[in-house]
């Protein structure tokens, strides 16, 4: 042990001064590396994906208050890969020039619902959830109405944001 040298008062001063610089510099370098590495690891988890307006069909073809299932093809970046998602949405004409787009995914546990024309309701095959043509829950376990997607009308085209 270098106790003789450390006992020297001047040395002790220098010692704590050096220790402080070492801590600060190492801390700064560690933080910089931490931000870069941590950023690269964590950022993708919090990145918001860009929503695109997709043409979903013509307004003319829709019947009032009858959900029409439309399959939308969404290209989505999945890291380096590109994935094509096929998502089914219901287009419901709710009036002159008014359209609602509903996600077809049941709000209970994520099963795919389908429109039952006879019962005039949207039904979930998994646990018996039932929604009306506007996506409001009428029976079963779903905790919330079907998710509404933003829509806009461009001429005769209905655009849905996914």
């Amino acid at each position: 042990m270098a106790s003789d040298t450390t006992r020297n008062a001047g040395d002790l001063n220098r010692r704590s001064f050096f220790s402080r610089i070492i801590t600060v510099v190492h801390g700064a370098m560690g933080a910089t590396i931490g931000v870069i590495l941590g950023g690269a690891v964590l950022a993708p988890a919090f990145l918001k994906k860009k929503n695109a307006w997709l043409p979903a069909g013509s307004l003319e073809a829709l019947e009032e208050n009858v959900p029409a299932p439309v399959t939308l093809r969404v290209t989505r970046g999945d890291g380096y890969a590109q994935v094509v998602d096929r998502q089914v949405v219901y287009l419901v004409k709710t009036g002159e020039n008014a359209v609602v787009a509903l996600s077809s995914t049941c709000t209970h546990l994520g099963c795919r619902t389908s429109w039952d024309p006879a019962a005039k309701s949207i039904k979930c095959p998994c646990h018996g959830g039932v929604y009306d043509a506007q996506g409001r829950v009428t029976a079963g376990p779903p905790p919330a109405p079907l998710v509404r997607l933003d829509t806009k009308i461009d001429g005769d085209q209905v655009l849905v944001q996914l």
Partner: protein
Amino acid sequence: MARLARFVGDWLHDRTRFRTLLRHLLEEPLPAGTGWWFITGSVLLFLLGIQVATGIVLTMYYVPSPQAAYDSVRYIMDGLPFGRVLRGLHVFGASFIVIAAGVHMVRVVLLGSYKKPREMTWVTGVLLLLVIMGFALTGYLLPWDQKAYWATTVTTNIARSSPLVGEYLAGVMRGGSTLGALTLGRWYAVHVFLLPLALVALVLSHLALMRLHNVSGPITPDPGEPRPFYPFHVIKETIATAVVFAALLTLAIAIPAPLDAVADPSDATYVPRPEWYFLSLFQMLKYFPGPLEPVATLVIPGLVVGGLLLLPWLDRTEERHPAKRPLVMGGFAVLGIGIVGLTLLGLRDLPARVDPSHFGPRAIAGLALAQAPSCLRCHTPGGAASPMDETRIRRDPEWLVAHVADPEVIAPGLRPAPPGGMSRLQGRAILAYLTTLGAGGHPPQASDEQQRASMVFATRCVTCHRIDGDGGATGPDLSHVGQRRDAAWLRTWITDPSVVDADAEMPAFGERLTPEEMTAIVNDLARRK
């Protein structure tokens, strides 16, 4: 807060005695006068740590398959937040390590630190150098770009040229008879599993041996008292490390780590060149042609490595002063001059690098062509195919050219071909656009005239002339034609070359170009100085 920290610290110390270990590690007394010379190893260790840390994060995003490797690296560069700096640290860090290892070795040789009893410290150091070279070699295949593919082709062929076992050796390195998915898989495994294990084992041995025999200290022992490693030596190492890290970080932020175009095994025009740290070996091959090749690939490198490993036994005197060891100094001077000289010669012979992400006239024309309604009909968000600017080329050029000439090729009979199929040259232009985009290029804001000129070049001139390395070679290179000719001369020549030179081979374009096209191409060429 401080009291809580002390309490937790005390509790932990009672159970683990960690402070004893820390004290043992940090308070080692170093010989008096141990100065700045002795920081080189710490800088190297720090840089290796950076490689391990950045490497681990890179493996989260990298995919070792020929289909995906390039795209995954491209994603790291362009899509992943902090990805560009992350890969920059790893790529430039590799070069820093080679330099730092060289400096460390020079220091050890100059001060004679390899001498008894530190022979094994030296040997583990030489082995570490080989491991570092192994990392460098396996690392640059991984992005699967042109450089990776072709430089590794050369490497495996060098292995093949070694006598007797060459074929087998090359086969093992490639995992078969050609470079492909199996090669990438094994080089990846070596790079991320095998070599790191070797690295950790050797670094630990190196450090343990260093502690066992202490650092060698100044050549003439300083009469002063020994001083503890912490903080009197650590402060020097901290400053040096911070300077090196600042330089590395600046480089990684300022310059995107190079990434060529995606590997194309059918491209016969690519001139492969290794990374600078292998350039001397590569250059040496040029002086030992044919049957003498193994002299450059095996004999000389083998002698150097063997000589390095045996150095402590070749130079057994206790003398440490460099001036009194002329033989060792002479040997290392020859080695150093050889490596530096060959590297410089190699650098001189490097072909001009063509930036694959640069938008040349063909790519600009392709960008304009890709906006055609017949493309956008399917290549649109939600459409039958990905939007053009997100399309990734994974087909051979012939398929793509055929597809843009008649898109029905992708799905015959399923849908009518859109009107306005494109010519072969237009198809090539779109291909150039997609390739440039795929190599990370950003479409420039091209003026109408620039677009028109690019279109003329891409559909007419390109068969015989080239600009920036792209195009035919029958006619003169037009990259810098503005230096030789002015706009008036170009206009006369392009309108009808036979007016200027009765024997000109170039056809007249006066009648084939519209006045706007003529003005555009003339102005564009005149600007190329």
